[in-house]
């Protein structure tokens, strides 16, 4: 069912992605419990280790997901086989082994010892949020990324160049380039924080949006049959808005870290525009699905695509805007409000877009046009379970955050952090329950790949 044989390498990447995703959620559940039962698994797995595993697995599995998506998408768009399928396979195993060793390192030895083992002193880059990987792993990521971009780039440059694969390529190159800032770790804490955001912000609110928009556009072309011209125009406008608002929008991270006051104005104004690209993505997805020329048998993939557009708008757009203006952020910065936004934004934008790609491409790689009836029903159930529970996780964390802000920062008589944490424990319990429902949704999702049932009947087009 695949148009090109080499698209099949994506399957490896997707399987690994789902596996690591499961690990991420398991550790998320552990952390959620540690929020209310502080001594759970202590001192074997202290919270910081669980969190490191949770966030690093997220980053790594999303990278696997992006790479897999690119390997599936690029040959089809370029109308040729992958430049070097063997390289894609080799890099997969290198990345998987390096990633697994790093995670095991986090879990099996104390972090300081891991720093010594990997000779962090030669080029200290560890111990910063999301960039906890040992320097050697970081170098490994760069090598894998370069090999990957070379492979993808050569395929695109020697094949058909479409807007989708060019935008995807720009996004991936940007991803690699901005990651280089992770090697810059000055002693000056303000400088350190300033350039740390060049990785984090310019990834998730910059180049990743390019990747996301192009993946979504690809799936929408395939499942709706809407004219490529129309979709490409939308794609350009969406990513233009993403970069126009998002580049200077980095300023919303420079409010309170010792950077000049003018960032409060610039950051607020430009990040107030940041919901626009996400809103346009929703408008775009609704529009093309509404005007679809065919009803694709893979209903689950259509659901995921629409879900991505809606949830990205909610999580990244609405919940981002909620606390992005400097006067509000003065109170909410570094509270559970941030956590609420982070969860829904990552799920809605990046988790869901990868799951959309998997949902669309996995059946094709397994020789079917779409999963069987039962599999699709299960998959849609898992969609709703995961999505609704993520909405609740976000709402509970928002509640916890508002209460925290009020008691700890806003009231006349501010209470200490730990006292406030105990007062908001109810919200953490509810979040944990929602987290368990999410895990059930994920298990159902995995099970849907093995479900046997009647083939979907569809008209040839």
């Amino acid at each position, binding site marked *: 069912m695949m148009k090109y044989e080499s698209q099949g390498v994506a399957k490896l990447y997707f399987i690994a992605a789902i596996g690591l995703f499961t690990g991420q959620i398991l550790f998320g559940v552990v952390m959620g419990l540690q929020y209310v039962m502080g001594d759970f698994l202590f001192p074997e797995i202290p919270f910081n280790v669980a969190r490191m595993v949770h966030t690093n697995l997220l980053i790594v599995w999303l990278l696997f997901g992006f790479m897999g998506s690119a390997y599936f998408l690029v040959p089809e768009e370029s109308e040729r086989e992958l430049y070097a399928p063997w390289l894609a396979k080799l890099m997969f195993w290198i990345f998987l082994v390096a990633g697994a060793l790093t995670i095991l390192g986090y879990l099996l030895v104390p972090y300081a010892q891991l720093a010594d083992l990997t000779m962090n002193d030669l080029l200290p880059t560890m111990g910063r949020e999301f960039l906890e990987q040992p320097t050697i792993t970081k170098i490994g990521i760069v090598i894998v990324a370069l090999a990957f971009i070379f492979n993808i780039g050569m395929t695109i440059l020697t094949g058909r160049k479409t807007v989708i694969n060019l935008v995807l390529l720009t996004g991936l190159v940007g991803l690699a380039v901005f990651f280089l800032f992770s090697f810059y770790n000055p002693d000056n804490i303000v400088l350190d924080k300033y350039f740390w955001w060049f990785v984090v912000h310019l990834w998730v609110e910059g180049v990743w949006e390019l990747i996301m928009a192009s993946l979504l556009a690809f799936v929408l072309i395939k499942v709706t049959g809407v004219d490529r011209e129309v979709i490409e125009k939308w794609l350009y406008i969406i990513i233009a808005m993403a970069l126009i608002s998002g580049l200077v929008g980095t300023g919303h991270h420079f409010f309170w870290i010792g950077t000049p006051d003018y960032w409060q104005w610039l950051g607020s104004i430009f990040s107030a525009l940041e919901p626009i690209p996400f809103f346009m993505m929703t408008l775009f997805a609704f529009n093309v699905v*509404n005007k679809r020329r065919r009803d694709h048998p893979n209903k689950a993939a*259509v659901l995921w695509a629409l879900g991505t557009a809606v949830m990205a708008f*909610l999580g990244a757009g*609405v919940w981002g805007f909620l606390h992005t203006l400097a006067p509000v952020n003065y109170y909410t910065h570094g509270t559970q409000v941030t956590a609420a936004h982070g969860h829904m934004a990552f799920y809605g934008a990046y988790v869901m877009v990868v799951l959309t790609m998997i949902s669309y491409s996995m059946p094709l790689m397994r020789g079917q046009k779409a999963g069987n009836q039962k599999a699709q029903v299960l998959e849609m159930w898992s969609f709703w379970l995961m999505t609704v529970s993520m909405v609740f996780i976000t709402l509970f964390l928002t509640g916890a955050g508002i209460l925290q802000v009020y*008691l700890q920062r806003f009231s006349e008589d501010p209470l200490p952090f730990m006292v406030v944490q105990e007062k908001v424990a109810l919200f953490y319990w509810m979040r944990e329950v929602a987290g368990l429902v999410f895990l059930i949704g994920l298990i159902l999702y995995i099970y849907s790949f093995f479900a046997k049932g009647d083939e979907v009947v569809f008209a040839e087009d």
Partner: protein
Amino acid sequence: MNSDELQLKRASKAALFSLLNLTVLPVIGFIILLLIYQKSSSDSIDHYYSVIGIKTNVFAGIALLLVSGLMILLGGFDSPWTWVYVVSYFTFVHALFILFATWVLVRSWTGEKLKKNILSK
């Protein structure tokens, strides 16, 4: 431009201003929506969409402003719990109204009425 196309333009304009009233142009959007409603003849597609827009916004007004107002009134201005409910409720429900209005806008572009599920045939 024939009258069909004109109606269609007005219908999508109605849907657009219903969305704008919910987002960046509150009140102004509603006034324009009322004007479009006034100009439309019953049974036409622009009439249909301006009525939907007006209903959506009146309902949103009640659901957002009135309910939030009641929450503050009943919960007390100085209670942290009031703000927990008001802020989460307002953000979430407001977003749902925006999403609904967006879908209406997209439907209005095709000149068809709402009905039709987004996923099924």
